[in-house]
C-alpha cells in the first residue's frame, strides 16, 4: 500500500511525470487487451481480410482517441485555442507545443497494439492467407481447382480443424510463411517508430531550443494559472455560500422575533457561543419551517453589505450599533425575504 502510494506521489508531483504514467498504463492496458481478446478468424474468402485488418487498425484508433480523452490538457488546449484575444496575445507556438506533446503521448498505446498484433501474427495470417504463393510453397500441379475453390480452401488456413487443402499446400508451411512476414513487418514497424521518436527527440536541441524553452514555460504557466483560478473561485464560492446562508438564518431568526415575540435579542449574548450559533431557532417547529423555507424559497444570490463586515451592522458609519441596529436589521431582513 505504501509502495503504491509512493509511486503514485512520484507521478503526481510533476505534471509531465503524471502524463507519462498514464501513457505507460495505457500501453500496458493495450497489451492486456490484446491477450484477453479472443481472436476468431472467420475463415471465409472475403471476410478474412476485413476482419484481420479491422482488428489491426480499429483498436489503435480507439486507443488514440482515448489517449486524448484521458489527457487533462486537452480542455486546456481547446480553451486557449478558442479564447478571444482580449488584452493578452495568443502565441501559436505554445498551442503547437501543447498539441504535439499530447499527440506524441497518445500515439504510444496504438503503436504498442499494432506491434503486438504484428509480432503475434494471427491478424496477418487471417487477413492474407488467400494471397499465399501456392506455386512456390505448395503443389500448383494439383488437379485443377477453380479460382474460387482455391480461394475458399486457402481461406481456411488459419482454422486448422477444418482445413482440407493439405495436398494443395501444407497448413504449417503456409502459417509459418505468413507468420514470418508478419513478424518481419512488426519488427520493422517498431524500428521505424523508435527511429522517429529518437529523431524527434534529438533534433530538437539542434534547431529550436530557445523557442522550445519559451513554449514549454508558457504552456506550463497556462496550466498553473487555470488551476489557481479555479482554486480562488472555489474559495470565493465558499465564502459567498457561507455569508449567504448566515444571512438566511439571521433573516429567519429576526422574522421569528418579529412574528412571535420570542427570546429577546440579548439572550444569545448571555447564553454564549452555542446559543448564538442557534440563531434563534430552538425548537422542532421552527427548524422545520426554516428547512421548508430553504427548500421552497432559496435566498437571492445577493449578499447584503450591512451584514458583510461584522455582526455590528454598519461598521463604516461610525455609529454605536446598539438599539438602532435592531429595527434596522429587521428592515434589512424583511428586504431579503423578498
Amino acid at each position, binding site marked *: 500500500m505504501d509502495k503504491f502510494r509512493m509511486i503514485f506521489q512520484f507521478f503526481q508531483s510533476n505534471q509531465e511525470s503524471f502524463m507519462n504514467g498514464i501513457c505507460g498504463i495505457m500501453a500496458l492496458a493495450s497489451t492486456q487487451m490484446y491477450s484477453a481478446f479472443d481472436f476468431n478468424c472467420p475463415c471465409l474468402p472475403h471476410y478474412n481480410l476485413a476482419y484481420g485488418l479491422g482488428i489491426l487498425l480499429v483498436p489503435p484508433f480507439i486507443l488514440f482517441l482515448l489517449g486524448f480523452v484521458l489527457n487533462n490538457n486537452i480542455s486546456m488546449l481547446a480553451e486557449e485555442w478558442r*479564447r478571444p484575444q482580449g488584452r493578452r496575445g495568443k502565441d501559436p507556438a505554445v498551442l503547437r507545443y501543447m498539441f504535439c506533446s499530447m499527440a506524441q503521448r497518445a500515439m504510444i498505446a496504438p503503436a504498442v497494439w499494432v506491434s503486438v498484433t504484428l509480432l503475434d501474427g494471427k491478424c496477418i495470417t487471417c487477413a492474407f492467407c488467400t494471397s499465399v504463393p501456392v506455386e512456390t510453397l505448395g503443389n500448383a500441379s494439383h488437379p485443377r481447382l477453380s479460382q474460387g475453390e482455391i480461394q475458399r480452401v486457402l481461406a481456411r488456413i488459419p482454422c486448422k480443424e477444418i482445413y482440407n487443402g493439405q495436398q494443395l499446400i501444407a497448413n504449417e*508451411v503456409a502459417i509459418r510463411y505468413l507468420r514470418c512476414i508478419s513478424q518481419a513487418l512488426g519488427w520493422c514497424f*517498431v524500428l521505424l517508430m*523508435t527511429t522517429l521518436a529518437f529523431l524527434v527527440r534529438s533534433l530538437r*536541441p539542434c534547431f529550436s531550443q530557445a523557442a522550445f524553452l519559451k513554449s514549454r514555460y508558457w504552456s*506550463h*504557466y497556462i496550466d498553473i494559472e487555470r488551476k*489557481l*483560478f479555479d482554486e480562488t473561485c472555489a474559495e470565493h464560492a465558499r465564502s*459567498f455560500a457561507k455569508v449567504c446562508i448566515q444571512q438566511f438564518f439571521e433573516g429567519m431568526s429576526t422574522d421569528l422575533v418579529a412574528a412571535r415575540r420570542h427570546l429577546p435579542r440579548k439572550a444569545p449574548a448571555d447564553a454564549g457561543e452555542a446559543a448564538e450559533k442557534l440563531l434563534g431557532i430552538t425548537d422542532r417547529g421552527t427548524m422545520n419551517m426554516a428547512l421548508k423555507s430553504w427548500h421552497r424559497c432559496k435566498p437571492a444570490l445577493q449578499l447584503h453589505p450591512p451584514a458583510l463586515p461584522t455582526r455590528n451592522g454598519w461598521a463604516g458609519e461610525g455609529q454605536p450599533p446598539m438599539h438602532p441596529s435592531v429595527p434596522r436589521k429587521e428592515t434589512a431582513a424583511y428586504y431579503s425575504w423578498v
Partner: protein
Amino acid sequence: MDRFRMIFQYFQSNSESVMNGICGLLALASVKMYTSFDFSCPCLPQYNMAYGLGIMFVPPVILFLCSLILNRQSLVMLEEWRRPQGCRKKDLAVIRYMCSSIMQRAMVAPVVWIVVTLLDGKCLICAFSGSMDPEKFVGFANVSTVQVQQLLAKVPCKDDELMRNNTSRKAVSRYLRCWSQALGWSILLILIIAAFLARWLRPCFNQATLLQARHWSNYIDIEQKIFEETCCEHSRLLAHKCILHFFESMRQEIKLHSFTLPREGEGTEGEEDFLWGITDQDQVNKFLKTWYYEKPPLDVSQKTQR
C-alpha cells in the same frame, strides 16, 4: 516497505543512479521480450537467413535507440553540444565523457539480447541450417542438390512432416546449437574482460581530467534540473500574482459602479478578503465572463496595488 523506499530514493537521488536503474530495467525487459516472443522460423530456403539474422540484429538496434531516448542525459549532452558559446566556454572533454557514459549504458540491453539469443540457439539454427555441408550428415548426403536445400531449410522445424523422424535433423541442430552457444559464451567473456580492464586501468590514465569531466557533467545536469524547477516556481508565482491583480481590478470596478458599499474599515478581515467585493450573482457572472473574454495581460509589473 522501508527497504523499497530506500532503494527508490537512492535511485532518484542521483542522476547517474537513475540511468543505471533504467539500464537495468531495459536489460530485464530485453530478456522478457525474448522469452515472450514466439520465434517461428519460416523453414524456407531464402527466408531463413533473413529471418534468423533479422531477429538477432534488429531488436538490439531498437533497444539501443530506446536507451538513448529514455536517458535524460543524452538530451542534456545534445543541448550542451549545440548551445551557442555565449559567455560560457564549451569543454569538449565534458561532452566526450557524457557521450561515452551514455553509449556504455545504452549498449547493455542490446548486448544482453544478442547473448541470450546466441545462448538459446534458435536464431543461428534457423539462419545457418541452409548453409551446412550436407556431406557431413548421413541423412542428407545422398540427396540431390535442390532437394537438399529444401531439407536443410526445414531442419529448424521439428514438427514438419519430413523432419519428424529424421535423425540427421537432430545432428544438424545440435551442431549449430553448439556453435551458437560457444559464440555466445565467448562474446560474454570478451565483453566482461573488456569492462573489467577498462574499469581497472582507467585510474592509470588521465585521472585528473576524468574527475574534472565527471564533475562538470554532473554540474550541467543539476543546473538544468534546477533551472526547470525554478521556472515552474516562477510561473506559479506569476500566475498567482496575475490572478490577484485580476480580482483586485474587478473589486475596483465594482467599487466605482456601486456607491452603496461602505468603505472597508480594519474590522473587515476574513470573509471580506475572499469575497473581493463580488457579492451577487450578476457580479460573479460578469466576473467570469471577463476572465474568459479578456484575460489580463501577462504583465504584473506596471499594475499598482491600489
